[in-house]
């Protein structure tokens, strides 16, 4: 009985989480525009979605900005983390505390403050400003992902590499980088998803003709319900689901492989 109650509870919560999504998916195939009635199966909204210039351009910008900002902030942030870890305590604390600002501050304040800066500096709003904004809020997350890995590093490991004849550069590539790689990858993925998902900061830093998916959805939704958004949601949901399943399967396969390897060795 207790077990049943538990399961029922879990079921209810997941129903709450998924019902809206499934309804969106179902209605993305509804030929009737009104929500109340089922007008028959159709792929009309998907067709319209792929013909919608606005959405396609938003998709393009979303992806370009996510990739560019993830790559740039990963490089910038990894280098910064290595540099910061070598600093003396006082300047290090200052830099780290400032880096926490975009993480802790509400997005709206980060967005607004960047907007003021761009107006103040007379920079034209558009792709450039949005990219700068994304790099700015992404980089601290990269630093925060790489930093713990650097802290775990045994400093003697770097010295050991030098001792064995490695130049500092060689030691960095062959010894330091592989060990902090998990942190770099985490930071890069985090930056990518944060960028894809961002609305508030983009909203304040974008210009005419440049918008990402979030902004496009916001402006459409403000005008009321639109079946094209249902189709878009369905596609987004499916891609997230597939991506996560792939990641999950690969991870559990890695764990299994590792366990097997260890079992054969012991």
């Amino acid at each position, binding site marked *: 009985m207790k077990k049943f109650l538990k399961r029922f509870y879990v079921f209810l919560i997941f129903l709450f989480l998924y019902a809206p999504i499934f309804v969106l998916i179902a209605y993305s195939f509804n030929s009737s525009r009104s929500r109340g009635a089922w007008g028959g199966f159709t792929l009309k909204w998907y067709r319209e979605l792929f013909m919608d210039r606005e959405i396609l351009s938003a998709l393009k910008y979303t992806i370009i900005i996510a990739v560019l900002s993830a790559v740039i902030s990963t490089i910038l942030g990894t280098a910064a983390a290595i540099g910061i870890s070598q600093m003396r305590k006082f300047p290090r604390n200052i830099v780290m505390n400032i880096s926490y600002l975009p993480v802790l501050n509400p997005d709206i304040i980060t967005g607004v403050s960047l907007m003021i800066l761009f107006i103040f500096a007379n920079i034209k709003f558009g792709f450039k400003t949005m990219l700068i904004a994304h790099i700015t809020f992404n980089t601290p997350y990269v630093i925060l992902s790489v930093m713990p890995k650097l802290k775990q590093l045994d400093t003697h490991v770097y*010295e*050991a590499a030098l001792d*064995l004849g490695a130049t500092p550069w060689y030691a960095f590539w062959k010894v330091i980088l592989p060990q902090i790689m998990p942190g770099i990858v985490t930071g890069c993925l985090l930056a990518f998803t944060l960028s894809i998902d961002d609305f508030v900061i983009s909203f304040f830093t974008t210009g005419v003709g440049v918008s990402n998916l979030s902004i496009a959805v916001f402006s459409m939704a403000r005008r009321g319900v639109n079946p094209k958004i249902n189709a878009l949601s369905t596609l987004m949901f499916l891609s997230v689901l597939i991506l996560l399943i792939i990641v999950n399967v690969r991870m559990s396969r890695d764990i299994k492989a590792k366990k097997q390897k260890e079992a054969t060795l012991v």
Partner: protein
Amino acid sequence: MDEKLLELVDISKTFDTTEALRDINLYIRRNEFVTLLGPSGCGKTTILRIIGGFEQPTTGRVLFEGKDIASLPPYKRRVNTVFQRYALFPHMNVFENVAFGLAIKKIDPRTIERKVASILELVNLANYGERSIESLSGGQQQRVAIARALINEPEVLLLDEPLAALDLKLRKGMQIELKKMQQKLGITFVYVTHDQEEALTMSDTVVVMNDGVIQQMGTPEDIYNEPKNIFVADFIGESNIIDGIMIRDYLVEFSGRKFECVDTGFGENRYVDVVIRPEDIKIVKEGEGMLTGQVKSVIFKGVHYEMLVESQDYTWKIHNTLMEPIGKKVGLNILPDDIHIMTKGGEAHE
């Protein structure tokens, strides 16, 4: 054997405001096993790091075969290090760790494979090449670290407390193995430890350090039998240290009695420290000894008993294979050879 391979001249090292090393002068001969011994923070690891190239001396020169290498980076020195906690590369397996130095020199893979196999054999880790580092025990990691350093055929191998993390039994075994390896390969070892027993067992030369200064340098026998000062006497083995007066050459007074000794050159009627090893005090019947005292405590230490015997102004620590009961009055005898005289704190008094 007499060639000076490595020489430190007037080395001093200051970190921010603290002085880590002062006026270090020492040389290391080819094929020698030299141990830097001292309590933690005495500067012994700093010396090792200066030889390895990880620290620059504030002043002084590091001579390798007569040439100053003080400014040479670690990767250009023909010196390799076994780090305290091994510093193995956790993302590489045993083979890759050991092959690291050779891979940098772009040696052809077949030679590398052959060399790695033979060095792993030497450290008793044949067939462990594919294992990951974390699957090894502490002792095995230790061997990998040694193999990784030795494969580069360094002129000098630096070892920074390499056995500190191992348990007692393994440590004893590794001491013997390391010594054997050193003799077989004919490589100069510079070994850092705070364990005096380890230093005495393995070394050709022991350098005792304290507070950034070399206290005494010599063979293990010299260091043990003829400690130069109170610090060395106290740090190496156990000692009874008692105030005394050097009346003249060959005669010292302590515990209210004059003793014959073998020391000279302290002047006349000087205050001195008298050092006597616990095993050098012989227990005889009451009344037959030079001193008398009462047994206060007895502890069995495995091979011998450690007894505290209280005489009129000092409680003597005595090691003896025979036990005397607590409360018994005994006589104590000390031979002239076993009395070591030291200047008091470096300054003489009237």
